[in-house]
């Protein structure tokens, strides 16, 4: 038998002064494709980064590439989100910059980015075009990077990784933000490159996997444990705590109609991203917003959150007031709570968990002013309710993903808003975490809060959802009541 591709002995790794991996041993043999599972913060990402040589570690990692293979002798790690740069090589972007028309020209087009990538790694551009088509991405090839939604960025990142064809490809949360169809396409592409010799390590808690995955493991207690395919990790039950008093009263809605859109249209140049949208969300309703990647969901939400400059050219009302009739975006944001992948990316990295939660009172992406006594007390109550006490002084971005999402939910509801907008809040969470998160959403919304929830996967939804709007290519495909179907 040939020597193993990767052989790890006694791997030790610390992350922000905490031991994450301890005495971890792992062998990846030729022909093996692994799935790595584990709860949030267990160290899945750290193992992959250590193999790719991206983090410091102690212990031994031997990598043996096949020198006769035509595939690149590289252990390539693909991060869980795509970080792009502007034409000056910086990635100093700000929240909602993608809707600023002037900002477009500061980033390359998808085509230019791919051409550049191909040139750096000496790849054939025809293959990139094939992958772009296979992932249903060809319409966007001339868009600029900053215009893309989170799902679309993911696809671009996947195209680059698949195109590169390293001998070992390690993908962290490759399904994040992808719709069902795109997930299927990704799986067939992974099967294809695996058949051609690339070995895979997927980090994911998802169930629909490429058929070539033949080994399974879970990271637990800093070590790697091999499991069988159907294994689901065992989780500690969360304690049930009572909802803080100040949230038990329903928010006072002065308007019956929270959102009302009449023939809303949004275009960028010749490209129309929203077409004749008519939609009304009444006070207290719980909506699910769905659609493929690029169907217009994030643009639609950005209108509601006051972040899209084209809001001023359309006929729609928020909380009973016509948009652009003298209100400020801060008047609007005051009445809603938001979680979205974008908000999280652009959030102040120097804010602690407690500061981040309090910032919800001011709708700022970080805490820039002194909270008063009541605000601090309410933050403390919420921190207790969400079980975040031991993390309250930790930096937000050092928290494991699952806890981070709970802290963002706390930030969102701290002012008891009339409208809650949760854009893929369970992205990257494991099933258990998603379930816990959604149970909290159900509990918090039972006081009459209006909800707009975006989620790709039918299994991970709060039970309170009662209506669904489906977008397709920027148009409303269907609106339905789905009380029974969930």
């Amino acid at each position, binding site marked *: 038998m040939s020597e193993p591709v990767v052989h790890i002995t006694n791997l030790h790794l610390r992350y922000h002064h905490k031991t994450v991996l301890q005495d971890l041993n792992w062998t990846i043999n030729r022909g093996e494709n692994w799935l790595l599972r584990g709860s949030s913060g267990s160290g899945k990402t750290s193992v992959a980064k250590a193999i790719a040589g991206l983090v410091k570690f102690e212990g031994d990692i031997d990598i043996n590439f096949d020198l006769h293979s035509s595939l690149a002798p590289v252990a390539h790690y693909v991060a869980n989100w795509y970080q792009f740069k502007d034409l000056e090589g*910086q990635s100093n972007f700000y*929240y909602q910059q993608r809707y*600023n028309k002037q900002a477009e020209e500061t980033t390359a087009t998808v085509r230019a980015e791919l051409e550049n990538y191909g040139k750096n790694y000496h790849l054939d551009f025809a293959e990139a075009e094939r992958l772009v088509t296979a992932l249903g991405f060809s319409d966007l090839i001339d868009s600029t990077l900053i215009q893309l939604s989170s799902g679309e960025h993911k696809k671009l990142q996947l195209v680059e990784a698949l195109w590169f064809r390293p001998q070992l490809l390690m993908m962290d949360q490759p399904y994040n933000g992808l719709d069902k169809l795109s997930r299927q396409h990704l799986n067939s592409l992974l099967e294809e490159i695996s058949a051609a010799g690339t070995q895979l390590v997927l980090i994911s808690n998802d169930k629909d996997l490429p058929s070539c995955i033949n080994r399974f493991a879970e990271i637990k207690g800093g070590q790697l444990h091999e499991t069988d395919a159907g294994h689901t990790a065992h989780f500690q039950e969360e304690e049930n705590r009572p909802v803080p008093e100040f949230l038990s009263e329903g928010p006072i809605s002065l308007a019956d109609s929270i959102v009302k859109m009449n023939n809303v249209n949004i275009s960028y140049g010749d490209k129309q991203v929203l077409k004749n949208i008519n939609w009304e969300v009444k006070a207290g309703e719980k909506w699910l917003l769905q659609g493929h990647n690029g169907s217009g969901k994030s643009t639609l939400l950005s209108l509601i959150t006051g972040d899209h*400059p084209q809001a001023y050219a359309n006929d729609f009302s928020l909380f009973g007031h016509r948009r652009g009739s*003298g209100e400020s975006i801060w008047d609007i944001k005051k009445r809603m709570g938001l979680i979205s992948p974008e908000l999280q990316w652009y959030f102040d990295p120097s804010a602690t968990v407690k500061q981040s939660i309090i910032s919800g009172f001011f709708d700022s992406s970080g805490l820039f002013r002194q909270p008063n006594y009541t605000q601090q007390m309410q933050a403390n109550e919420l921190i207790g309710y969400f079980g975040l006490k031991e993390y309250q002084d930790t930096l937000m971005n050092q928290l494991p993903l699952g806890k981070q999402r709970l802290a963002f939910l706390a930030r969102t509801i701290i002012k008891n808003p009339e409208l809650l907008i949760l854009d893929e809040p369970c992205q990257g969470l494991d099933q258990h975490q998603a379930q816990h998160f959604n149970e909290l959403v159900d509990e918090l919304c039972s006081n009459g809060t209006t909800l707009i929830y975006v989620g790709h996967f039918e299994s991970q939804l709060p039970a309170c959802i009662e209506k669904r709007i489906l977008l397709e290519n920027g148009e409303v495909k269907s609106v339905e009541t789905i009380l029974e179907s969930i």
Partner: protein
Amino acid sequence: MSNYFNTLPLREKLNQLGVCDFMDSSEFLDGVDALKGKKLVIVGCGAQGLNQGLNLRDSGLNIAYALRKEAIEGKRDSWKNATENNFPVGTYEELIPEADLVINLTPDKQHTAVVNAVMPFMKQGSTLLYSHGFNIVEEGLQVRKDITVIMVAPKSPGSEVRAEYVRGFGVPTLIAVHPENDPEGKGLVQAKAYCVGTGGHKAGVLKSSFVAEVKSDLMGEQTILCGLLQTGSILSFDKMVEKGIDAGYASKLVQYGVEVITEALKHGGITAMMDRLSNVAKIKAFEVSEELKTIMRPLFQKHQDDIMSGEFSRIMMEDWAAGDKNLLAWRAATGETAFEKTPAGDVKIGEQEYFDNALLMVAFIRAGVELAFETMVEAGIKPESAYYESLHETPLIANTIARKKLFEMNRVISDTAEYGCYLFDHACKPLLADFMTKVETDLIGKNFNEGKDGAVDNSALISVNEVIRSHEVETIGAELRKAMTAMKSIKTV
């Protein structure tokens, strides 16, 4: 037109130079009310014009853009910026007569032409807003007596003004009312409301005067902000190459070093910057910077004198009249310097290495910031103004050098700043020639601490620390920074 400042009696000159109050946040409780329902028309739609307009509209105000007919017909960038963001756009004739507030956000050089074109259309009792007072103070433009003239100047590039606003914060801003044009006494109220509209009130607002803003702004940009950064960068690079340090390394050390070093300034002033050095290195940097201060002080004073007397503006406006002959020649020469033409090498330089291996740059920055501050304060400018125009802006300008070296810095700053920068640079280099012959690679290019055991004399260290920490730029800075602690850190490394 004649220089407005020079028409004032001495008493009034000092009076207007000495205006600078840090405003309490309670001054902004009325929000944008004073401008609510009014028609705001912005002239010009470049980076400041567009981004301020986006913020003002998102604050619930009514915004339109007035552009020249040729810009509209030619569908130029300004027209695209405005229409693609769904703003109403029209010619001066169409929009100005309706406007309650006309906001002039065109480049300095065009101010006279723009204001003369716009003024006949402005309605009785309306307001004209500037974001820089050069036109009023140096060119002495007279505005119709019924019109209120105010200034609101966000102290950051346009994109930053937008980025901070959407984060729920803002950028530090300076506001002023022109005493010759405040017929109804509404200038300050409107300036405050505008400031709330752009988000500036959350980050700290200084009440200044047109005169103080212009005289301090010119001084800061010519000396420490642009002039000295240019001189220091070029001299440091040339010295390293002369002494055999790899040119790619030298280029990178300077290009990114200015940013990394001044990042420390932003957080904790000169004290924090000097504290990043070891004790031995700090004492050496202190001595070098004291020497630099002695050599350069007369040049800083000359710049301040020429700014106060109007001599600087006079020669610059002569150059405008000559089709920017000198400016263009100097710009081209900067593009040809070895520093500009040597790309940053593909070497890793750790954050601390930017301090340890560039002690000379640290000394240049301390000397420049303190000299600019001291010279301004001696000339009658308030310490608060002097702080903003020296220490506060240094990291912002250093950031442009990190992006694309001196070319980028000179592209981003105004033509006025660029002109002053070259003037300073050309006078400063010969002045430092002798000094530079003594500089070895321990000051620039190699780690100063190498081969030293780090021992220092207690009393020497204490007295150096004392001098650094008790400087007025440090005491006033600590106070002002408290109000803007949340400023986003600028990072490219």
